[in-house]
């Protein structure tokens, strides 16, 4: 916010702008991300994001191996929610090869994707508060809850973060016995924690002062710049791919799409809180509807589990997108009929959401720039793919 009382001072003195470099190793940049900033006093006048420090050419790696073998690599895109990444890639390849998913597998997928959304949003809020200077208290509370869900993931998939659990046409293995009850127990406790978390944060005067009217993103710009996920919804556009595409079995669930009114950092925080509550609603319905037994992988795709090299989708292309917690995660896959994809592209929401970073930060103080970056919610594994 431009403070009017500052203006006479800068007029009287001959001031210069200062170019500084934040990152790539900086505690507030969420990873190896660099911001080339020009400051006038403390006010940001120009900001150029510089990225690529974590670049490993994920796309080329995937083009040089079988379709199934890039599944574990998608885990490493957005390492906070590997289940969603698996989901997007599986959807794209299923579209390409025309594979149907059995019902139970679909329910398992949705349950895991929604748990992932909770994991992501709760840790993002924790990190956002870290950026605001509320070091570690909200973050450790958030991580305590995250840990409970990650324990479930470990029990299901074998790994807490690099789950590698989805397969084309289903999932890798059935859920271990008694797991649905454990998810239910977790879910019964979670709203209480969320209430407590909100009591800690939502009405907090300092949080309101620091976040409201900071980094305001208008509706038109958000849409034009291709933003998606909570960023777009905080700006007042209720566009949710789960509702629009009704991919997988999302059409069966009754849930709302929370939208913000102003599009500032506070709205982005609050939209995420509300989304967690909606995720709980979906989980509740999914847990009630899930068939107690059935195939977990389609008959057509099951043989390829043992022999991934024989999986050759017909010539063609497919674009599969899911509503990942960060936004629209799309996978564009082109097949030439061989066991390896000819072209494999990831539409990374974290990367595209960074388009507006400069617009949001200009005119704000340096400390606010960190908060705005935190509210965009980037993961460098995905930005730099």
């Amino acid at each position: 916010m431009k403070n009017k009382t500052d203006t006479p001072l800068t007029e009287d003195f001959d001031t210069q702008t200062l170019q500084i470099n934040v990152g790539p190793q900086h505690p507030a940049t969420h990873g190896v991300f660099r911001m080339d900033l020009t400051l006038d006093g403390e006010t940001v006048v120009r900001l150029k994001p510089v990225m690529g420090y974590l670049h490993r050419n994920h796309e080329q790696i995937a083009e040089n191996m079988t379709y199934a073998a890039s599944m574990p690599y998608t885990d490493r895109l957005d390492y906070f929610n590997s289940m969603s990444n698996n989901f997007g890639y599986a959807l794209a390849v299923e579209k390409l090869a025309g594979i149907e998913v059995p019902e139970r597998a679909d329910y398992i997928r949705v349950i895991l994707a929604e748990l992932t959304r909770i994991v992501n949003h709760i840790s993002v809020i924790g990190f956002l508060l870290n950026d605001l200077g509320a070091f570690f208290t909200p973050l450790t509370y958030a991580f305590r809850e995250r840990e409970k869900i990650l324990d479930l993931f470990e029990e299901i998939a074998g790994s807490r973060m690099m789950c590698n659990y989805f397969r084309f046409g289903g999932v890798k293995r059935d859920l271990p016995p008694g797991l649905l009850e454990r998810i239910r127990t977790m879910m019964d406790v979670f709203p209480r924690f969320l209430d407590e978390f909100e009591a800690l944060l939502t009405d907090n005067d300092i949080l309101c002062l620091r976040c409201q009217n900071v980094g305001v993103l208008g509706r038109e710009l958000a849409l034009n710049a291709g933003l998606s996920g909570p960023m777009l919804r905080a700006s007042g556009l209720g566009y949710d791919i789960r509702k629009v595409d009704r991919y997988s079995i999302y059409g069966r669930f009754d849930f709302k799409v929370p939208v913000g009114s102003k599009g500032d950092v506070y709205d982005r925080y609050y939209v995420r809180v509300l989304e967690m509550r909606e995720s709980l609603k979906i989980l509740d319905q999914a847990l009630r509807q899930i068939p107690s037994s059935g195939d977990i992988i389609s008959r057509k795709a099951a043989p390829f589990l043992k022999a991934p090299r024989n999986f050759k989708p017909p010539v063609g292309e497919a674009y599969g997108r899911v509503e990942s917690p960060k936004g629209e995660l799309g996978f564009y896959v082109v097949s030439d009929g061989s066991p390896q994809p000819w072209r494999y592209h990831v539409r990374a929401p974290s990367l595209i959401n960074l388009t507006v970073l400069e617009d949001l930060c200009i005119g704000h103080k340096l400390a606010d720039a960190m908060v705005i970056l935190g509210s965009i919610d980037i993961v460098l594994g995905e930005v730099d793919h």
Partner: protein
Amino acid sequence: MRTEEIRDHLQSLDSSLRLRIVLESLLVENPEDLARAVRALKSSPRLKIDFLSSVTAADYLDFLETVYHFYSVELRIGPVVLRARTRRDDPKIPSLCGLFRSAELQEREAYDMFGIRFEGHPDLRRLFMWDNFEGWPLRKDYVQEDSDVLESQDLAWLEKNSIHVSQELKTRALDLQARGLRADAQRPAAEGPANSGAP
């Protein structure tokens, strides 16, 4: 709407557009028309395309191709897929930054990986690779450089910055230069990495 309908609809809006159906998408035959086609999509009352989701490119050996996935957030329509082709030796495609800001970083990414010059892009630099990186990594003929071997120009830089280099690396660099070779990752099997476990 089906792809044929979209084609006919676009051609009714702008009769000079030449469009061909490829798979489930529309190929803009003359890449110069791309911006006009997108403007028609944007202004069409039946489509109201307002969201450019993904911009990417692909290498088909004879030509390079860019692929665009559009959606309409207002009407919940999509994806409308456009593609444009360009020559491999001098790839040029008009930029869509003026129409959709979401193309900004994605076109830079496509430039970085394929070397397609997006004309009219305000800030066309490499996105992930460093500025003086050579080559276009996602083209099919790209050969990865061997990061364990130095080249003579690396030696010059290291010496300028007074960084010590072992004699072995120096001899290899000079040997490569004498043979007129680059330090490519494809090398004889006998020279495999020390820890590959081969007997």
